[in-house]
Structure formats: structure tokens, C-alpha cells
């Protein structure tokens, strides 16, 4: 696709492309196919085959996944705005799409499929290494989120957690709460497991939105 001034400005804000020249950024777009979608259009379905990544140049899209919790009804797990990327995992390592992506507004996307990426690697090694670096950044950040959640889930119930509301005060007449780090009563432990489960479930759904 031909680069417009506005689209180049969007790519200029992408951190992974920061050290590329304007010329190089417009060359990246030469390897991309322009894809326009209207409000409510489906970019791809969950489970669909596909090996394209999309850089959002205009508009906003929603990623939705089906959750077993809410039956078959899809829930929104993320939104993509200009300067962000969708579908990058399937481009580097083909697998069925893990989310349904719908345009919330009219969108202009730069689509790069697997074969274009291979061609780009030959012709524009520097720019394509920045693109792959961008993907690595996204994947590492998501994996860090997974690790962080797992570490939090492993913390004993007494560990301070700033975002967790303080436990309710003990009922009148009850004995003082046990000291932190003591063995939890089974009911509290069961509640902790339930909390972890529901927290993870929504977290997984969000991550699945990174198709």
C-alpha cells in the first residue's frame, strides 16, 4: 500500500520503529496490503485460519472471545487503536485465530501475511527485524503478565495485596484473627481458590484476545 502522511505519523509513534527513517517506514507499508473495514465488519473469526498480521492505521477494533462462563456469548477482551498490532502470533507461527475481531469504527489496516514478511526479510532486513522485535516485545509482555499472575496466585493468603479489599472485621464475640502466614481455615482457602479461578479466567480471556 502507498503510505500517506497520516499513516506514517502513526508508525512513527510505534516504539519498535523509532530508529527507522521515514523512508524505511514507508517501505514497510510497501510490503503491506491496505485493508479497509467498515463499522461492525468482521476482520476474522475465532478459530479461522489466517497468517496475516494487521497494523492499525485508522479506527478501532474489538477482540472478542467466547467464554464458557457466559455461555456462548462473546465478551470483549481488548481493543486495538492506531499504532497497535493484531494477529501477529498467527503470522509468525500459524495457528487458528484465538479471537473474533470486529471493527468498532471504519478502519484502515496494513496487512502483512507470512509470505510478505518473508519477502520483507530479504528486501528490508533492518525494518523487518524491528517488526519481529515488536512482536517479541508483545509476546514477552504477555508472558510476563502470565508469570506475574501465577506468582501472585502462589503467594500465601496472608501476603499483603494492595488491590485486594481488606478482610471484613471479625464478627462480635469471635476470637482474634490468626497471625499472618498461619495455616488458613479450609473455608478461606476454598474461597481463595475460587477467587484465583475467576481472576485467572478473565485474565486468560484477555490474553486470548491477543490473537
Amino acid at each position, binding site marked *: 500500500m502507498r503510505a500517506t502522511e497520516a499513516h506514517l505519523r502513526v508508525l512513527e509513534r510505534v516504539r519498535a520503529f523509532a530508529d527507522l527513517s521515514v523512508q524505511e517506514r514507508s517501505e514497510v507499508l510497501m510490503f503491506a496490503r491496505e485493508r479497509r473495514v467498515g463499522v461492525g465488519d468482521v476482520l476474522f473469526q475465532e478459530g479461522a485460519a489466517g497468517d496475516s498480521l494487521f497494523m492499525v492505521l485508522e479506527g478501532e477494533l474489538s477482540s472478542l472471545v467466547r467464554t*464458557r*462462563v457466559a455461555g456462548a456469548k462473546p465478551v*470483549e*477482551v*481488548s481493543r486495538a*487503536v492506531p499504532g*497497535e498490532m493484531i494477529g501477529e*502470533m498467527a503470522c*509468525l*507461527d500459524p495457528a487458528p485465530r484465538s479471537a473474533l475481531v470486529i471493527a468498532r469504527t471504519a478502519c484502515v489496516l496494513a496487512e502483512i501475511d507470512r509470505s510478505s514478511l518473508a519477502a520483507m526479510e530479504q528486501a528490508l*532486513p*533492518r525494518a*523487518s*527485524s524491528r517488526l*519481529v*522485535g515488536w*512482536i*517479541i*516485545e*508483545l*509476546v*514477552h*509482555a*504477555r*508472558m*510476563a*503478565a*502470565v*508469570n*506475574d499472575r*501465577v*506468582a501472585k*496466585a*502462589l*503467594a*500465601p493468603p496472608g*501476603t499483603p*495485596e494492595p*488491590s*485486594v479489599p481488606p478482610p471484613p472485621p471479625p464478627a462480635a464475640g469471635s476470637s482474634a484473627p490468626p497471625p499472618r502466614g498461619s*495455616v*488458613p481455615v*479450609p473455608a478461606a*482457602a476454598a474461597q*481463595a*481458590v475460587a*477467587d*484465583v*479461578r*475467576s*481472576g*485467572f*479466567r*478473565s*485474565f*486468560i480471556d*484477555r*490474553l*486470548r484476545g*491477543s490473537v
Partner: protein
Amino acid sequence: MNVRDALRATGAFVEYPDAELDLLVSVCDLRRYASGDELCREGTVGRSCYCVVAGAIDVFKTMPQGEVPIASMGPGAIAGQVALTQKVRRTATIRARGEAVVLEFSRDTFERLLGASSPLALRFQRQIAVAGIRQLRDALKRIAAVFDTDDGKAPASARGSAAPPPDQAKAREVLALLEGAKGWDLSVETLDAVEVVSMPRHPSRRPSAY
């Protein structure tokens, strides 16, 4: 067998032409570790990644209850690769299990090669990306398998055996999840990026940690 042939025999470098594998071996430091020797320590700043040529390495992470083994890796495995692209602290400790031969690839060298658009660096970079994508998918699958029990039934893996007490069950499940994150030394500093890439921008819709 020379190092190049040993690397090729692992199956992880089949796509590399001989010249690139030779270059990889020549720019990396070949290190031999005795059993229990430390390759890197959690909390220190990472400057390199490790390719296992022979033997095995174990990955440990500090948890509230102490140091926990989270993964074991054999020939062909790449560990600590986040340090190759980001300046982050190691979030796991790696030790040799038995005698291990490891190639250490430094970030400085990788960046220099990448800066020169070396085909080796481009291929290695892509390998890191694909490995990361697969590890992430695997971790998500494991997490989903453990936690997707909203129908009230225990996860498939737990059925058929006596249910352990809930607190132990929780620890066990979470340890199983960590298996999915094998090979990754990741830092929580990058968490903010996740919110940007995967969540709506509206502040009120930011998820709160549980």
C-alpha cells in the same frame, strides 16, 4: 562431534545453514558447567541467553515458600532469551543438572549482528519470537485447563483421585501452570505494556488485580 554438529543434532537449528551455525558458535562463549553450577541468578541484570548444547539445566524461581523448580531443559533449548532483547533482571535462577555444555550468546553481540542485518541474527530473532509464541500459547492452554472448571467439576487432571485440601490444591495447580512458562525469565516491569496492548484504554475499565 564438534559444537556445530551437536547443535544441529538437537533438532532446534535445522534451518540454519552451516555457515550461520559456525558463525553462531564463533560469536558465542562455549561454557562447561559442573552439576549445580549457576548459569545466572534471579534478580541480577541479564546480558545474555543460553543455548543448551549437551546435558540439561534446571530453572528455579523464588516463591513465598522458597525456591521452586519450574522447568528443566535439555539440548537445543534456549533459556533467558528475554535478556537478548530487553534490559531486564533475571526472574529465575538457572543451574546445571549434571554436567552441561552451554553456548552463551550476549546481547551486545546479538545487537551488533542485528544492527548489521546478519542473516544469523534475523533467524535467531525469529526463533526467539516463535519460541515465545509457543510458550505463551502453551501456558494459556495449561492455565485454561486448570482453571476452567466453572461447571463445578474438578479439572480433568484432578478427577479420579482424592481431592487434596484446598490450599494444597491451589499451590499444586499454580505450580502446574508455572510449567507452562518454562524457559522464560520475565520481569513484572513489562506489565504496564500489557495493559496498553491488550486492554481498553478507558481507566475505569482497567482490571484490578485480585
